[in-house]
Structures are given as structure tokens and as C-alpha cells.
């Protein structure tokens, strides 16, 4: 039984088990905020994608969450942060998705469509932070 989670928190993303854990956390949080089933699924899937990126490309990092409010509406914001190599060409990464050749890449363009707000801060040699938000 999941107990109610605090409005902010963080979880490490170091290995595969952490990705599963991240999904479970987001499931609990979105259920807590009473998102519809489709909204929950989209957010959990987005979290899974970004958590994997953090592990694979960012060489590990963390996921931070916060329940946000803007006037009358509430939402869930997730930050996926790592101190990895950073993304050299963000524009390109946002366009490619899975359409390039071997079809791997970071899938950021697809993930962006699953959420309402998407922001990415990255610096080569310093790390990356991807923030996503879904509003109720």
C-alpha cells in the first residue's frame, strides 16, 4: 500500500532498479494528485524515458519531484538531473527522437509530447537537467 508522499522529494537514479522505482514513485504521485488514467500513464512513461536517459547518458543522477501550483491549478513537476557529459546539440536531440537510423537516441521529442511543460538545461562537461510538468 502506498502511503501519501511528501510534496517534494528526490530519488537516486543509478541503475535499472531505480528506473522501476522512479516509475512507482510517479505512479503514486500522479494518483495522489488524481490525474486521469491517461495522464498518469503519460507521466509515468515520460519519467521512465528520462530516468533511463539519466542512467545511460548521464551516467547516473537523481529524480526530484515537486507538487506545484499556479493560481487555481495544481501539477506535478519532475526534474531529472545528472553531472554527466551534457548534450552538445540540444536542438538536434529534440528533433531526432527515434527517427534517425538505428532508432536509438534520447527520445526527447516524443517525451516532450507526453507532458505540458518541458525544459532542458545542459552544459557539455557539466551535466544535464530535464524538467517536465503535467498540470491537472
Amino acid at each position: 500500500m502506498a502511503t501519501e508522499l511528501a510534496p517534494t522529494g528526490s530519488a537516486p537514479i543509478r541503475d535499472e532498479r531505480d528506473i522501476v522505482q522512479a516509475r512507482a514513485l510517479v505512479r503514486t504521485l500522479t494518483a495522489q494528485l488524481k490525474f486521469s488514467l491517461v495522464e498518469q500513464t503519460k507521466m509515468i512513461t515520460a519519467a521512465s524515458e528520462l530516468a533511463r536517459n539519466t542512467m545511460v547518458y548521464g551516467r547516473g543522477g537523481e529524480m526530484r519531484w515537486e507538487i506545484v501550483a499556479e493560481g487555481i491549478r495544481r501539477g506535478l513537476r519532475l526534474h531529472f538531473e545528472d553531472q554527466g557529459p551534457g548534450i552538445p546539440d540540444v536542438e538536434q536531440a529534440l528533433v531526432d527522437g527515434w527517427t534517425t537510423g538505428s532508432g536509438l537516441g534520447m527520445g526527447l521529442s516524443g517525451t516532450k509530447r507526453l507532458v505540458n511543460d518541458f525544459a532542458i538545461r545542459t552544459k557539455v562537461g557539466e551535466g544535464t537537467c530535464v524538467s517536465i510538468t503535467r498540470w491537472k
Partner: protein
Amino acid sequence: MRRENQRLADLLRDDQANLLSGWAAEYHKYAEGRGLTRDLQAQQTSILRELEAGIRADGNADNFNDPAWRVLREVLAQLSTDRAAQGETADVTSGFVLALKRPIFDGLQRQTGGAIEGQIDVIWLTSAVVDRMAQWTVANYQKTREDIIVRQQHELMELSTPVIKLWDGVLAVPLIGTLDSSRAQMVMESLLERLVETGSELAIIDITGVPTVDTLVAQHLMKTVTAIRLMGAESIISGIRPQIAQTIVHLGIDLQGIVTKSTLADALRTAMRMTGHTVARAAS
């Protein structure tokens, strides 16, 4: 703390009773003769309190987003949300906030026995801050109204996109009106749910009632068809009028092998065949 802030803060602290009654009287003029409800009276007190706190924290009108004004902003946001939800108009709501100016000016006059010299700074501070408060209140009010409208539109959309079971294993969705992304989402959700519920193998999406089909609409249709396919069912798009057919070709939209028909009747005929039904007229 700046001198004018000090003066205003002290006034707000020391002259509460007069400010409150003066404010109520001024509101009466702004609000077409209405008096203060108990809600508004309670709001008055918290607004004065948080305004004083913001002034004491050296807040100024140039930057209303400053942390000094944070709690006041929250109180005003709550005020506008409440007012909007209760169907109060924007001008009466902002009028309530603006009505605070006069009693403060009166209070300042009482303090100095009517002398105007040296007052300009504190008068300006008052006027500018109350103006910003009113602006902020109206912005939030509008946001609340928008949210209510969006929710109502959503409910209306749900009512206007029925999924119909045409035959065993055949569902149909007659789309009427523009197909934007939220509508498309809704259609997808209802259609897929019904697919599961009825165990249908085929969905007919009729676009006779959709006025224009551009690349965006085509994308929505394609997403819907793909989702239907993922659930093991097939789709037919019907209602492709000659004009729409031309637009699709001109725009170079590739419908990727989706079966299309010009009428719902043709679509039904095809659907029956695809699901292994034969339709025959009874011998007379």
C-alpha cells in the same frame, strides 16, 4: 525601511478600524450599491494585514513579484478565485481592491491634520501599490474564468463525441466540428475504451461533419488509427468529400494505407465484409 513605507505601515497598523469602514463605504460606490459580504469583510482584514507586512518588508510597487509581496499575492489570488467562482464580475472584483486607496488617503490626511507637504512619496507609494494589487487580482480572475470555460468546453466535447455500436464488432464515431488536439484526445480515449468494452474489431471514423482537413487534423486522425491498430482493430475513415480528397492530395498528406470511403454507407458495407458478414435481402 524607506520613510514612506514606514509611514504607510504605521497607518495600516494604527488606523485599522477607520480604514476598514472607509473601505467598505468606498466599495459601496464601486460595486453598484452592494455592501460587503462576510467573506469580503474577512478578506479585508487579511489583505490589510499582508499589505502591511509587505510594506514593512520594504516592498515597492516597481516589483510586485518580489518575495516581500508573496503572501499578499496569494491572498489576492484566493480573493479573485473565490469571486470568479461565484460569478462576480471582473470590474467589481478589481473595484474592491481599488476602493482601498481612498480610505488610505483619508487616513494619511488625518495623520497630518490635512497638510499636503512631504506627502507625495507616501501618496505615490499607496497609489502605485494598490494599482499593482488590482492588476494582479484581475489577472488571476481572468485565469480562473478561463479555467472554468476550458472545463465546460471539455464537458461539452464529451457530450458531442458519442461512440456508436453499428453492428457486432463495428463501432462508429461521427465527428462533428473542428478536430483540435483536445477533441482528438477525447475521441481516442472514448473510442479505445469502447473497443475494449465491446470487443470490436473495426472502427469507422466519419469526418463528414469536419469542415477542414489540414496536416494537423490528418495527424490526429493518423494517431487515432495507429492507436486503434495497436489494440488489434482496424479503421475506416469515411466522409471524405471531393474537396477534402483534393486538399489531402495537394497537401501531400500520406494516409499510409488507411481504408477510406466517401460515405458512411460505403464504410458500413466494407466493414461488414471485413468482419466476415454477408448482407442479403430476404426473399419476398
